[in-house]
């Protein structure tokens, strides 16, 4: 309820901007529904468009680039006022982006970037995955203080860019804390099942009493690992600190239950900032920077995680 009121108030404050956004038509080419996060992104984008009175044309590409290119061409043919694109791959966008440019339709990239000249699109709204790792690392540095801390790390799918970036960010954050060391690091493939299996082996190899914290590259692996910690007879969130990234509903529930300590949000609201940019552009032609970083908010036990869980559960995660 509170959130809705807050949104209403902010909507009223933005009233002049909304006047320019109303009656505008925006096309949104979504990758598909590969994960819960993406389903939530679609839901939030539709909500944001509705709140601003924007007519959103939604196209689900079912994980295929050719479907996205087709969708973009149809948006151009329909003469939409702007296009939001969540690109499934990085390459092969040049010609269709040129067509949009020729039709003078601004294109905003959501969540991922493309390998094309940056004057072909207006801006990219994405999260900084290295920074996400840093936020998680900083939380741990503050949480343990000067105590000795042996960390085990559950990596994402080997070679994937979020796994590489989230590892690098975390390592950067703990670089100045010699008391914190990563003693084991293995991939859990971003899945619950594998997170649990790998954590089991960590617990056996190191001994639960010798592990001070778990850092997982996503919440799903952390949720799986929490079960493994419980089965090994230790208390997750207390004996072993748990910090992860994404802020999916089940992780909020785990924090609310005291089984996890912190998570960094990968916000599904990429469209909000994109619409703000478009409002400003339509109002007085303001051009945004080429990269707009979304907020990587840290959630800990200090937040009302039960309420956030209830709110996020409906988003389609």
């Amino acid at each position, binding site marked *: 309820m509170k959130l809705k009121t807050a949104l209403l108030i902010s909507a009223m404050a933005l009233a002049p901007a909304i006047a320019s956004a109303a009656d505008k038509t925006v096309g949104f080419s979504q990758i598909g529904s590969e*994960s819960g996060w993406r389903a939530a992104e679609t839901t939030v984008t539709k909500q944001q468009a509705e709140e601003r009175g924007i007519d959103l044309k939604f196209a689900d590409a079912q994980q295929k680039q050719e479907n996205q290119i087709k969708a973009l061409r149809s948006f151009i043919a329909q003469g939409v006022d702007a296009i939001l694109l969540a690109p499934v791959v990085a390459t092969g966008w040049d010609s269709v982006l040129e067509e949009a440019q020729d039709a003078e339709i601004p294109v905003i990239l959501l969540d991922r970037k493309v390998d094309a000249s940056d004057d072909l699109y207006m801006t990219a709204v994405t999260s900084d995955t290295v920074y996400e790792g840093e936020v998680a690392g900083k939380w741990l540095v503050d949480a343990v203080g000067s105590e000795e801390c042996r960390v085990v790390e559950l990596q994402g799918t*080997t070679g994937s860019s979020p796994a590489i970036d989230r590892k690098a960010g975390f390592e950067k954050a703990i670089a100045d804390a010699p008391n914190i060391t990563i003693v084991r690091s293995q991939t859990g493939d971003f899945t619950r*099942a594998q997170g649990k299996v790998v954590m089991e082996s960590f617990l056996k*190899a190191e001994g639960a009493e010798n592990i001070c914290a778990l850092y997982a590259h996503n919440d799903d692996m952390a949720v799986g690992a929490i079960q493994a910690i419980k089965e090994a007879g230790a208390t997750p969130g207390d004996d072993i600190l748990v910090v992860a990234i994404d802020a999916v509903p089940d992780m909020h529930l785990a924090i609310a239950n005291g089984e996890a300590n912190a998570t960094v949000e990968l916000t599904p609201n990429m469209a909000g900032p994109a619409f703000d940019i478009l409002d400003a552009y339509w109002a007085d032609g303001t051009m945004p920077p080429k990269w707009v970083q979304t907020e990587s908010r840290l959630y800990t036990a200090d937040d009302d995680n039960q309420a956030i869980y209830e709110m996020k559960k409906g988003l*389609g995660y």
Partner: protein
Amino acid sequence: MIGATFRRITPQLIILGIVLLLNFLVFPGFFSIEFQNGRLFGNLIDVLNRGAPVALLSIGMTLVIATKGIDLSVGAVMAIAGAVAASVVTGGGGWFTALIAALAAGLLCGLWNGVLVAFLRVQPIVATLVLMVAGRGVAQLITEGKIMTFLNEGLIFLGAGTILGLPTPIIIWLAMGTLVTFVVRRTALGMLIEAIGINETASRLAGINSRVLLLAVYLISGVCAATAGVIVAADIKGADANNAGLWMELDAILAVVIGGNSLLGGRFSIVASLLGALIIQSVNSVILLSGMPPEFNLVIKALIIIVILVIQSPTVKHALYLLRASAGSAVPEAHAVGPRNSPAKETRS
């Protein structure tokens, strides 16, 4: 008969022993088993427990492969069964209803595959590929693309509980393996399945109802996959339609192959396939315990598997046999070969 079985599985036992020893080398505490929180706790237990899904799949896969078929859909069937079980308990049903519903879903998938293969004569690899691709979509439809979590104690027990200190999945796959082995080996069924694999036309002419038997092996494979799917979902208290059983059909086929069963059908050993599944899990365990960077995971696994398969290849086996034979009287098996051949020669002369 026990002696024959033992001879059949000797290579697998030796390989398993070597891989377990490898585990011991990278982690000296490997063989220690403790009793804590009312359950046995140790790496060896983990291997048996984590090997459960592949072990279950390999039971059905062995029979399917013995008929010269293959079942690529088992991973997707796992996802469907997990999703069905989760949706039953989240809808307010009990764990037993959920289990029955999941097994029924597995049977239905098996029926689909079996009808395509046995009655419509679609090649097994193509027929089961259909469900492999479409099945995951079905599972995603059931869970609506989310991880469907549940808190039903009864269902969770099937994946994460213990009976007499042993994790339930171990009991389940041991029971399933014993049951199927008993049924096919204490009756003529096993031999009939082998006959179909060797020459289906001949076996049909000999009076074997090959269609019904083919259908039956795909049904068994479906049920095994559904059981594995329920275990995997129960283990993480949620049905993850995107990832449950993903690529596990390949591990199941590998288990059957490491078990020394021919992909061309014919003679089979379920016990050897189960050992194959344990070997695969032990290899995974080596990788996890070694603490190597994850970039090396697949390389290590590939190397170990290649070595195992090369050792088992007919050429190398033959070379080893010749080596032992030429070593002379020092090796007892060379003796065993001699006398066994000589009576034959005598009768011929």
